[in-house]
């Protein structure tokens, strides 16, 4: 049985007790302990900065040209924290409860409670770093609402919250680089974990410019390498986002938790053609003020402005009056799919719904006019003032929409459709964020821990920074305290030599195929299988087919992929090939996991398990566990179960009605 090492005691005292009793490392010993961190997004950069500040010798790796490019930068809407600055009834308990419920009772209570406890510290830390959050006229911080909650606890910086938080963490990281505590390896990709006597002791990395393989020792290795949404080819992830670091760890004995839990985000710009390389998110914050609708009549080809109010179906408001347009993402996505599948979709593809700002513009315009003492404002003035307010709140998102679609969303409602956005699954970790390989940790989106089967909006940034700033600095000490007698292991140790040979053999094998089809062509085909059969709705037949199709595609890939150039130079096609090879294995495991979980929960919707109203139907008696998969060789995985015990948030049918 998996041991999550959850501390004893009442839920709200566990973290305090842990901090009071975990082992410490004295400053002199910290200087001789080396920590490797893979990934420099919110989790990786905040961990690298914090561990550097503590005095550990840190090596940080990223495949981009600078740590500031990590995909956390693209997070738009905001970050949650239980500050209760709005006096609207928020508390640590409420944030904990909303997160467990939002995750459809598939997250570990103790981790989620800790996350809620440290959430306030994150905001304090970021403000101290100079993160320019939105403020009110009194100079205090502003908040907005996000899906799945009834309080305003989301802090934001226009539609660029992730950017501002990452730049804060990046600047803290660069400060440690300047002080000599962190060494940075940009344009480097981790390609193998090195294990010695069962413990993670380093990595093999490829210098992406020279192609040279490098060996790096660490007393501990932290993976903060993000999620695996790009297995679908089309997603809101960056082009380079990949599962390679986590997958290499899986093959070296780290269990993979809940791989089938993927988040399909309801508000993205729809696909426009076969050339599409990625999808663009329109922040969930837009659902604060925007109203989602489709025509009441099937195949209604009128322009949106020509469809009168009483012929519009505001289906989220209709189905979920309590939360309306702010239901959680999984619910909103399925509702959009349901309307489009039923023939009510809009736009040329009919795979889109409207996100309409007309009502918000009018409402804000009237408020502004009132503030200025204009008592019967003209419609033009109301509109002008309303547009100004909306532009201040969401201007960059509206501009982005216009650049991509060529339509002005201030005048025409946006067309949106769900797209792959985030993966709740990831490397299984215990309470200390350690994987099943001693000394190997996973942080941020790379682990499975806090969001259950569905992540609430504005919680990814919170979790990434919680893990890096406030959790790992404590929990890693508890491990490294026993490592103070371990001298740095020279990298000519046989384990390093062997790991490097393995990496080299894999690269040579890829380069020697010299087939006929590009890496992207395989990636697209994998993405289509995953989207059609392991996407927003899944069933037994489809998943079984998908497993066979992926196996066949993988075999074809290893026979027929074409990678131009050589391995000892800057070769983006080779990088992509390695990542797609890993996605071709992960995709199969996702389907295996989805097939095993014969219930619906959160983002995992099994068509066989739904209520009469089409809502996800959980099966707590049989599936209240974390599925942690152990790699046993090609296409072979063993399931380990971590039972989920709910002491505080008692599972109920999740209702947003």
């Amino acid at each position, binding site marked *: 049985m998996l041991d999550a090492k959850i501390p004893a005691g009442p839920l709200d005292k566990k973290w305090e007790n842990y901090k009071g009793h975990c082992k410490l490392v004295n400053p002199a010993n910290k200087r001789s302990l080396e920590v490797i961190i893979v990934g420099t997004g919110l989790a990786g950069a905040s961990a690298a900065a*914090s561990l550097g*500040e503590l005095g550990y010798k840190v090596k940080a790796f990223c495949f981009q*040209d*600078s*740590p*500031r*490019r*990590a*995909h956390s930068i*693209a997070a738009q809407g905001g970050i949650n924290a239980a*500050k209760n*600055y709005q006096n609207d009834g928020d508390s640590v308990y409420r944030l904990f409860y909303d997160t467990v419920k939002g995750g459809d009772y598939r997250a570990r209570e103790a981790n989620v409670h800790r996350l809620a406890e440290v959430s306030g*510290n994150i905001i*304090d*830390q970021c*403000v*101290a*770093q*100079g993160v*320019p*959050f*939105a*403020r*009110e*006229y*009194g*100079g*205090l911080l502003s908040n907005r609402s996000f899906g799945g909650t009834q309080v305003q606890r989301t802090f934001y*910086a*226009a539609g*660029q919250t992730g*950017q*501002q938080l990452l730049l804060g963490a990046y*600047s803290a990281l*660069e*400060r440690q*680089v*300047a002080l000599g505590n962190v060494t940075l390896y*940009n344009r480097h990709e981790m390609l193998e974990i090195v294990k010695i006597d069962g413990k993670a002791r380093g990595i093999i990395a490829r210098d992406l410019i020279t192609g040279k393989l490098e060996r790096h020792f660490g007393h501990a290795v932290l993976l903060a390498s993000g999620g695996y949404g790009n297995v679908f080819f089309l997603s*809101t992830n*960056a*082009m380079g986002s990949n599962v390679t670091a986590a997958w290499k760890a899986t093959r070296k004995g780290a269990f993979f938790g809940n791989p089938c839990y993927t988040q399909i985000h309801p508000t993205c710009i729809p696909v*426009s*053609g076969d*050339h599409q*390389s990625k999808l663009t*998110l329109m922040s969930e914050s837009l659902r604060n003020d925007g109203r989602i609708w489709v025509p009441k009549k099937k195949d209604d080809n009128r322009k949106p402005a020509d469809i009168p109010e009483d012929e519009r179906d505001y289906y989220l408001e209709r189905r979920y009056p309590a939360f309306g347009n702010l239901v959680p993402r999984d619910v909103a996505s399925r509702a959009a799919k349901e309307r489009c599948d039923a023939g009510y979709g809009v736009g040329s593809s009919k795979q889109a719904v409207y996100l309409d700002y007309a009502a918000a513009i009018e409402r804000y315009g009237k408020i502004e006019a009132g503030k200025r003492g204009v008592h019967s404002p003209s419609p033009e003035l109301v509109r002008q003032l309303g547009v100004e307010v909306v532009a201040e709140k969401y201007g960059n998102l509206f501009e*982005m929409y216009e*650049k991509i679609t*060529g339509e002005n969303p201030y005048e025409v409602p946006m067309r949106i459709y769900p797209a792959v956005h985030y993966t709740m699954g990831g490397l299984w970790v215990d309470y200390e964020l350690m994987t099943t390989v001693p000394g190997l940790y996973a942080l941020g989106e790379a682990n499975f821990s806090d969001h259950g089967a569905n992540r609430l909006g504005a919680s990814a940034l919170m979790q990434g920074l919680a893990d890096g700033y*406030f959790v790992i*600095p404590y929990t890693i000490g508890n491990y490294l305290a026993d490592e103070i007698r371990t001298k740095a292991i020279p990298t000519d140790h046989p384990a390093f030599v062997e790991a490097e040979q393995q990496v080299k053999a894999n690269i040579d094998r890829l380069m020697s195929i010299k087939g006929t089809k*590009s890496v*992207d*062509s395989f990636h697209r085909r994998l993405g289509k299988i995953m989207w059609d059969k392991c996407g927003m709705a899944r069933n037994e037949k489809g998943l079984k087919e998908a497993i066979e199709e992926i196996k066949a595609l993988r075999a074809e890939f290893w026979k027929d992929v074409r990678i*131009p150039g050589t391995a000892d*130079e*800057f070769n*983006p*096609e080779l990088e992509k090939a390695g990542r797609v090879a890993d996605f071709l294995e992960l995709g199969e495991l996702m389907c295996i996991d989805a097939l095993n979980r014969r219930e619906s929960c959160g983002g995992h919707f099994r068509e066989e398990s739904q209520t009469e109203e089409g809502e996800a139907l959980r099966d707590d008696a049989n599936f209240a566990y974390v599925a942690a998969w152990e790699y046993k060789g090609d296409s072979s995985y063993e399931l380990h179960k971590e039972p989920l015990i709910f002491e505080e948030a008692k599972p109920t049918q999740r209702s947003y009605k």
Partner: protein
Amino acid sequence: MNLTLKVWRQKNKNDQGRFETYQVQDISSEMSFLEMFDVLNERLINEGKEPIAFDHDCREGICGMCSMHINGRAHGPWAGTTTCQLHMRAFKDGDTITVEPWRASAFPVLKDLTVDRGAFDRIIEAGGYISVNTGNAVDANAIPIPKDKADAAFAAAACIGCGACVAACKNSSAMLFVSAKVSQLALLPQGDPERSTRALNMVAQMDKEGFGSCTNTGACEAECPKEISLTNIARLNREFIRSGFTYEK
């Protein structure tokens, strides 16, 4: 639409480099500029040729990785737009488009359209931060910051570090980039204790990296995809002069 592309090809740092001409057919106006490159690269791979290396990642205008000089303009013809957000609507059938990497000696070319922007990281290392260790912060609302100050700091902080300002500048100056960070932190009370050393050290590092001087031409502001304002450079100049007069070692 059908287009002629003249693209800078350079095998590595030491190669001299040259323009190659490519014809691309059936490009949809809905494609992004980089998707048009994807189409070309797919074809080159199928023809057994080496695809064109270019930096890109988020493809939504925020990571700052994409960096093409298109028809003589950093990120191409649209104002306030990164290369990845430029769409083919901006061009018409039969156009010839010239694509180069950023040209600046502080940004050496690594391959084709990919350059090394490590100099920007080193400038941040020189002082683009507030020295506050994790766990040292007071409550976030303990220091009220006037909204206009916070908004101005945010506007400066919106810089994505892409380097278009350098590429657009006839002197290859990095003043807009440096001034954006200095301004953000100078506008906030949290940044005050290190205000003097920050401006001096970041400018010193900028000079050391080999960026040119600023002559207030304003090409940087005109080409910046995030429309970072030239007033930040004025603020940097004030910060720098003030530091020179007031800072005691």
